[in-house]
């Protein structure tokens, strides 16, 4: 039997799958349920200092090759969110707290508060492609990534994982900046800048016009990002983008990821996707002669 346990910057996981930020993680009840369904950890919705309604509907459009969304970072704010994290912890979930803000200070403040809720690590959403004026836009510069990471590292004693955007010329320069800022790991990738138009109505399909693309469409882009990043940094990488099967997860792991996150695949496969992924992963690893997940990390670089 293949040992599916893995570990990312000291965070121990029963298996390498995590719930990606933004999926069924606005409420503690849902996070508990996802953990019970088999995820190795759950990442919270990205939480900011204040409650935020997000964009008007339509916020989600299913396309042939992926999902387009512009939810606009709705969240109940860090204060109210304590209740949700507690509820998830009550079910035994391993929780990673995702945060955002408008500048380094806000990132640090929200992260510090999140840390007091007992989460195991902090994820920094530096990469939402459709929220104007937030840190997520500012963080399109290497300096900002380094600065925000450092600011958060200075106030929490948890592992910090900046989550990077693929909407850049070379994602590895951002990964290096994050590492310089003291990051304990990198999460890649967030959604790609995208748009759909409904010709019958002569208008964009999202109320916000623009949105972020996720799902199968972006998997090859994410795998490449992870592969490239792993050649440039010495900290673990968590892969995300279009993962819906054990095979998909192994693409990321062999590209160098220590763990993976799953989001859009929940639409087609439901919460059973986590067990499905770990089962298929175990069987493929066994076929390929591996006894544990860590043995397979990065083997495609050989």
């Amino acid at each position, binding site marked *: 039997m293949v040992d599916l346990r893995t570990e990312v910057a000291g965070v121990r996981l029963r298996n390498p799958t995590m719930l990606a930020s933004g999926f069924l993680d606005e409420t503690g009840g849902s996070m508990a349920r996802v953990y019970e369904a088999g995820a190795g950890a759950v990442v919270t919705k990205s939480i900011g200092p204040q409650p935020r*309604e997000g964009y008007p509907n339509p916020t989600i459009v299913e396309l042939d090759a992926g999902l387009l969304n512009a*939810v606009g970072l709705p969240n109940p704010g860090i204060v109210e969110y304590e209740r949700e994290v507690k509820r998830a912890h009550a079910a035994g979930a391993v929780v990673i707290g995702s945060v955002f803000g408008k500048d380094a200070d806000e990132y640090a403040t929200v992260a510090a508060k999140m840390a007091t809720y007992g989460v195991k690590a902090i994820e920094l959403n530096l990469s939402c492609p459709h929220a104007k004026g937030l840190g997520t836009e500012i963080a399109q510069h290497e300096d900002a990534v380094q600065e925000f990471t450092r600011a958060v590292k200075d106030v929490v004693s948890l592992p910090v994982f900046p989550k990077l955007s693929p909407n850049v010329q070379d994602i590895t320069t951002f990964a290096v900046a994050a590492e310089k800022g003291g990051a304990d790991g990198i999460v890649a990738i967030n959604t790609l800048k995208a748009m759909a138009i409904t010709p019958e109505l002569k208008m964009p399909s999202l109320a916000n016009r623009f949105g972020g693309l996720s799902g199968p469409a972006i998997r090859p882009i994410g795998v490449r990002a992870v592969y490239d990043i792993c050649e440039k940094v010495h900290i673990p990488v968590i892969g995300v983008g279009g993962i819906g099967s054990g095979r998909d997860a192994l693409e990321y792991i062999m590209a160098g990821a220590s763990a993976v996150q799953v989001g859009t695949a929940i639409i087609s496969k439901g919460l059973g996707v986590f067990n499905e992924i770990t089962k298929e992963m175990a069987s493929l690893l066994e076929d390929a002669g591996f006894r544990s997940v860590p043995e397979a990390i990065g083997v495609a670089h050989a």
Partner: protein
Amino acid sequence: MPRIQVVPLLEVVRETPTTMTYRFRADLGGQPGQFLMVWIPRYDELPMALSYLGAVKGITVRDYGDATHILAAFNAGDRIGIRGPYGNVFRLQGEKVLAVGGGSGMASMIAAIESFAQQGARVVTAVGAKAANELLFVERANASGEVHIATDDGSRGFKGFVPALAEKLVEREKFDQVLTCGPERMMKAVVDLARKHHVPVQASLERYMKCGIGICDACSLDDQLVCVDGPIFTAEQLEGSEDFGHFRRDKSGRRVAA
């Protein structure tokens, strides 16, 4: 293929001073109790129950807030976007069914009422509204069985809330199941009375929705999602719920009074 279909409205029918039915042809199935996400271009996208399931589908919408008010001005030929059908289905259990509808809640139940009657069940419907002119689908329900009416102001039928009317009916006759849809406090009362009388109940809940497909967590009720686990829940599922009848989530995900 995109999942959104844009359809022209074939017909817009006024049901009550505040409620309209919109008919359209669409390439989708749909069973009693299921809903569509309805895109009102430039305004909003909202969950709406299928009130007609045939070749020409229909939704029946109360002019309630910003977007539904815009929709109220739509005419035949105007286009809406739809995706779905989503959600679970009202299931026939036994032979005698009591349907308890409040306000626009009848829109979610009427297809079940018709379908259950067609399957041979005896369907008794208790319809409630503020006043007589706000009663919805009384004739369609009547054509599928027996109808009892309650109005808050007594302008027609029983004066008072529809759960009280329903209780009378349950005391009078042994039903095999109760269906209900309407304001949540009303449904809570119906669920409680059905439980008291040991009648199985299916309640169709409403929550603010974004995705409709089980990812955004906007519609959660305890650890259930109204869009994919519901909208229809049984008394057993709602038993012990901290949220049902008490709390809902606002657009930011905050838990607020229902």
